[in-house]
């Protein structure tokens, strides 16, 4: 009976343990303190403001789109935007504002972000993955019937990536700086019918 009781208590505790949380967000200011500390040590290259504030969402969209336009001018980017060159391995990476997008505070920050997106795309390309992007204008025209698109769902730009699989496309997209600023990304596979 004692053994059964012990076993029962152990199982009860184990059940509780399994329901324990595994993550807890530290205070927001801690990240900034650490980044500043690393900047002082020269381990982080200053290039990004340590605080990003929310401005009007349209300005953030402009920042992302300017980067995309700049990306198109970089040499050696293979264009895969024409339907003739799209394949089953082409994935569209939609950049959306999401609910928590942090806008660049000023022109300097926008340029720094552009540089980050550029570096990211360049790194993707250096891995041997074809990538391109395109700018979308701010004006939106809705046609037909349907639910109103929420501001967080508006696509501000997109990349086209030739990845070996959906998993690879997702893996590459997970490192996109757009997520750093609280944006949302949607990855869709092209269906070349």
């Amino acid at each position, binding site marked *: 009976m004692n053994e059964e009781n012990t076993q029962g208590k152990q199982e009860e505790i184990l059940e509780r343990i399994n329901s324990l949380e*595994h993550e807890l*967000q530290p205070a927001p200011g801690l*990240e900034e303190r650490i*980044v500043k500390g690393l*900047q002082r040590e020269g381990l*982080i290259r*200053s290039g990004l403001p340590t605080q990003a504030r929310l401005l009007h969402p349209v300005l953030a969209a402009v920042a992302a789109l300017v980067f995309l336009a700049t990306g198109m001018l970089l040499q050696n980017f293979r264009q895969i935007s024409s339907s003739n060159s799209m394949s089953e391995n082409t994935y569209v990476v939609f950049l959306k504002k999401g609910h928590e997008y942090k806008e660049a505070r000023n022109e300097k920050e926008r340029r720094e972000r552009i540089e980050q997106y550029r570096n990211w795309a360049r790194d993707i390309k250096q891995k041997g993955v074809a990538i391109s992007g395109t700018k979308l204008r701010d004006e939106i025209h809705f046609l037909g019937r349907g639910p109103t698109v929420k501001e967080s769902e508006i696509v501000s730009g997109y990349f086209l990536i030739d990845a070996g699989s959906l998993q690879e496309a997702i893996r590459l997209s997970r490192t996109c700086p757009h997520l750093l600023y609280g944006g949302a990304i949607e990855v869709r596979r092209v269906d070349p019918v």
Partner: protein
Amino acid sequence: MMETQEDDEFLVKCFLKKGEESSFRLLYRRHSPYLYLFAVRLLGGNKADAEDILQETWIRAARNLSNFRWRSSLRTWLCGILINCWREFTSRDRRANSSAEEKELAQTNVHQTIELETLIQRLPDACREVFILHDIEGYTHEEISSLLGIHPGTSKSQTFEARKKLRFWWNGQQKRED
């Protein structure tokens, strides 16, 4: 979102190559929630001290990332650094005083309803460390042995001891509630 080693490798590479702030921030955000709760548990619930430990962990990690050989996952490596920071932290004089205060506080909770987290906080440091790694975070005794520099047998005995204490306290709490 599941963190994969490939993602970590990519971000670490960008950070090391160019000192990219964005890459560091992404790494920080991917792993800090896990590391922070780990530190909070190690420190018996003290969040302020856990933040200090976490800060020191990331600074040491950034300094030594170029020496990391990917023999384990990045998160496991970061846990190892955090544990070292915690051990140094708890060996300092001021920590001895706050440990006494926490244990006194824990004692005053004996007659109140005690949640499991509070019971874990009451465990002795060595027991708590191993218990968190094994029973909560799922590390094997071999991995714990490597992380903490102890024999796997020690890890097993500490886990056994921790479970025994928790069972005893839990049983005691249940009787008081009945």
